[in-house]
């Protein structure tokens, strides 16, 4: 297994270089360093000299990929790509274009994002599996029928509706929790109650229906028939056999999502005023802040690769037949 993980990590480096190169190319295809300078300096009274100075100050006065004026290795190293990208592999993200330390920003914003995403993920997963099990358990009954109808209805409603409706009903009309805001520590609970609740409710339709399909597929397998033939109770069949065997496809979706929980949720964080990472990338794209964009894409890639690796490892835990050899 160690050899497998090492091999995957080496692949990851190549993938990250590729992702980094594509991000770099896409970003500078749309924005020139001059555009970035203008965005930072504002629309009023910007002189050509000010733009030149800004680019020099922020290191954007170098050629993008190849420095024809340099000699030897400097042709490659004395470029924007090399100077701005190499440090990222040491997880040193440098400064954003407005002079703020990106690592500090990420560290600060990561915790509110996690505080929202982790309960939604864990409680949601438990709720979706429970609801799906319930529908599968009572398959072909009115419970299953109305459960599926409910799922489809909930899937059809926009997530924004749950947020605005939830804020209106729970926070405004019932006055039970604050509409938006955030505070660190235990005080976060009163701000997180509503977004977590809405996050879970918003995802219940699609997730429970998907998990139900997985459970129903498992229920029709031979080992389940065997278990029943042995005289096991239906609950035992479901919780000891069906649930365990259905975990592989569930894990595929769930474990890969765990690292990405750090990246936050754009809409929820925005509506609930949670100062997380969700909006960091979008704001950076709007502000044409290349430093932040490439850092967030890089972290997203690392986390995604990590998620896939964790998924592979988790297979061995739930299914002893899976071997890395």
């Amino acid at each position, binding site marked *: 297994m160690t050899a497998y993980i090492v091999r995957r990590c080496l692949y990851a480096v190549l993938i990250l270089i590729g992702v980094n190169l594509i991000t770099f190319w896409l970003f500078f295809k749309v924005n020139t360093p001059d555009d970035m300078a203008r965005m930072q*300096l504002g629309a009023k009274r910007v*002189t050509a000299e000010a733009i030149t100075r800004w680019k020099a100050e922020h290191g954007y006065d170098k050629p993008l990929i190849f420095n024809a004026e340099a000699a030897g290795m400097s042709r490659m190293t004395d470029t924007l790509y090399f100077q701005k990208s190499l440090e990222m592999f040491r997880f040193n993200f440098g400064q954003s274009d407005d*002079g703020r330390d990106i690592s500090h920003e990420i560290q600060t914003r990561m915790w509110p994002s996690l505080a929202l995403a982790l309960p939604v993920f864990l409680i949601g997963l438990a709720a979706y599996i429970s609801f799906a099990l319930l529908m599968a358990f009572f398959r072909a009954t009115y419970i299953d029928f109305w459960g599926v109808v409910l799922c489809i209805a909930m899937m059809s409603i926009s997530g924004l509706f749950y947020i605005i409706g939830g804020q209106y009903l729970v926070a405004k*009309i019932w*006055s039970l929790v604050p509409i938006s805001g955030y505070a660190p520590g235990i005080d976060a*609970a009163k701000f997180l109650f509503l977004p977590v609740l809405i996050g879970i409710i918003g995802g219940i339709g699609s997730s429970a229906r998907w998990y139900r399909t997985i459970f129903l597929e498992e229920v029709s397998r031979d080992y389940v028939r065997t278990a029943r033939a042995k005289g096991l109770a239906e*609950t035992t069949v479901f919780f000891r056999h069906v649930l365990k065997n259905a975990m592989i496809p569930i894990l595929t979706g769930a474990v890969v999502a765990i690292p990405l929980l750090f990246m936050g949720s754009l809409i929820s964080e925005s*509506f*609930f005023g949670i100062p997380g990472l969700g909006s960091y990338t979008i704001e950076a794209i709007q502000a044409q802040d290349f430093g932040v964009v490439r850092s967030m894409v890089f972290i997203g890639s690392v986390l995604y690769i990590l998620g896939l690796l964790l998924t592979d490892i988790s297979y061995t835990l739930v299914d002893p037949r899976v071997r890395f050899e």
Partner: protein
Amino acid sequence: MRVFQLVMLMGFYALLGGCGNVWNDPYPIAERGGNILYSSFSERPKHLDPAQSYTSDESDFISQIYEPPLQYHYLKRPFKLIPATATALPRPRFYDARNRELPASGDALNVAYSVYEVRISPGIRYAPHPAFATDTQGRPLYLNLDAASMRDKFRLRDFPMTGTRELTADDYVYQIKRLASPRVNSPIFGHMSEYIVGLKAYSDLLVVEEKKLQAARKPGQVPPMLDLNRFDIEGVTSVDRYTYRIRLNGKYPQFIYWLAMPFFAPIPIEADRFYGQPGLAQRNITLDWYPVGTGPYRLTENDPNSRMVLERNVHFRGEPYPSEGEPEDGPAGMLAEAGKMGPFIDKVVFTREKEGIPYWNKFLQGYYDRSGISSDSFDSAVRVGSTGEASLSPEMESHGIRLKTSVATSSYYLAFNWLDPVVGGAGDGLQREQTRKLRQAISIAVDFDEYISIFANGRGIAGQGPIPPGIFGFRDGVEGVNPVVYENKDGNARRRSLEVAKKLLAEAGYPDGRHTRTGLPLVLYLDTTAGGPGDKARLDWYRKQFEKINIQLDIRSSDWNRFQEKIRKGNTQMFFLGWNADYPDPENFLFLLYGPNSGAKANGENKANYQNPEFDRLFERMNNMENGPERQAVIDRMVVILREDAPWAWGFHPKDYGLYHDWLTNVKPNQMARNGLKFYRLDTALREQKRAEWNRPMVWPLTLVIALLLLSAWPALRSWRRRERQVARPALQSAAGKRG
């Protein structure tokens, strides 16, 4: 399971019970009843360094912290400059090339230099800051920090000791030097280097010095602080401890307005030395993040993702509330606290709200003391009468909310590119005349009164020229009406009919929207950054306006960068743009049409590239005149030229609507300055009472929802038990059969 749910529910109620009689209060309980103003911000400030900050959003913060030598009177309109830290308004003195003093009324062309001497009041002190902290021997406590002492320093508050010192003239001189620093990148450096004697040369010296420092540093090492005091600016000097002098090239009467902007606020060199230490910038401990000023407030919490907190500067000397204002200020109670020393509020909490709906609802719950009005909430907040006057809706009135409106010192316009052969001003006499008539026809057809009504909820007034209300030179009433676009009908200005526009179009060579010679339809191009689904209504409206006179409009959408690039290069035909005043002088609007400021030719702010020799001559004359009838006459003539040439369709001047709860008083919107927080007053008892009244928690719906959920589980439970029994029965029968 039910026990678990019950425990969770009780825990939740206990948690909410800890919130007191109001459960949805987003602020800490410790703050209840405090003399704290609650406000919001939507965009995180990019810069809090006064040498860099150039947006109104950032100004909301730094205007409370930094004090330029001058400021605008809080109540008087038109805007009037008064001293802030200065003892009096500086009177410029003028000199010729031989350094002989000239009379103030002399010809501006003879003026080689202007000198502004600013004297500041003694005894003004900076807010507490670690940069001023000293040991018992007077040595700076937090200078030359080594790695060990930096280990636990991540925020400014991690430096527990603070100090202060008196404001001196050197601090103002130092800030002007910072405008030229290659490490600061001030947006006004280019503009100021044209006027302040020696600023450009000083900057060149700094650039050389910076290159040396950068070359000498080792890889990965932070370069040492750039010592701005190593060189001097020829035109900026300290005369004594409290006086400094600025020497300008030529005559620039508008310079005095710049002295009321944060660009010219003082920065103590101690702050630059402190923040310039290696390692602090990497932890966001910079002047751009933690300002240090002499103003009524200081920034004690800076989390631009979530909230910013200003607290009273304990060293602030106090400032008396004005005793004079506009005639209506007295009856409105705005002079009730005349002479009392501000600030009246201890703390201001700005919370970041990115979305309009939660922001609006929190204002209605009493958790924000003031609010703007978005388009979504306009109809529920404001009623517009048949004559256009705005009043509050009954719901707002029942909340005791007050509405304050003011016309912004801004102009939004549709520009015609003067370099364009179809709508521009180039060509021979006949062609110029035809393009002029085409622009006039479009100016009539594009109905900005309708635009204001549809897209701005009536919040604006149609432009009659480039100068907005509240700025000297603006003409109100009938004499201010643009006769090219409007006609006088029974004393009221009415937009000219489409027949007039069509006649002008025919005279321009496009009868019925077709070219006289070729018969081809006239197609014009509008460049815009709009293009998404949300912009469709607006773009359709633009097309409809041109269709009224049979002109086909082709809208070319592009992103902001390409849009700007097209304008810069003059590759546009028409585009919408706006301008917010830097200062309340007509020059700040008329220079947008001054020929030598052409955007395409000189990278200036004349984005339409308009050129008219007579207008340019008048501008140069008007630019150096004092406000008075003579200047007004010149401006009137300039506006007549502009209306006739129509380089812009005059668009509109937006109106700002602000809502304020009745516990917040002494509020008067000020479009030019945002340092009015020091005069706001709160009735915190009333606020607490209203909040409790408006936010009584309703528990029963939640209990009902939980009960319904539990109830819905009951049939499933019964069904499960039945099935368990059904599974068991055949097995037992089978066993019994075998035995039998």
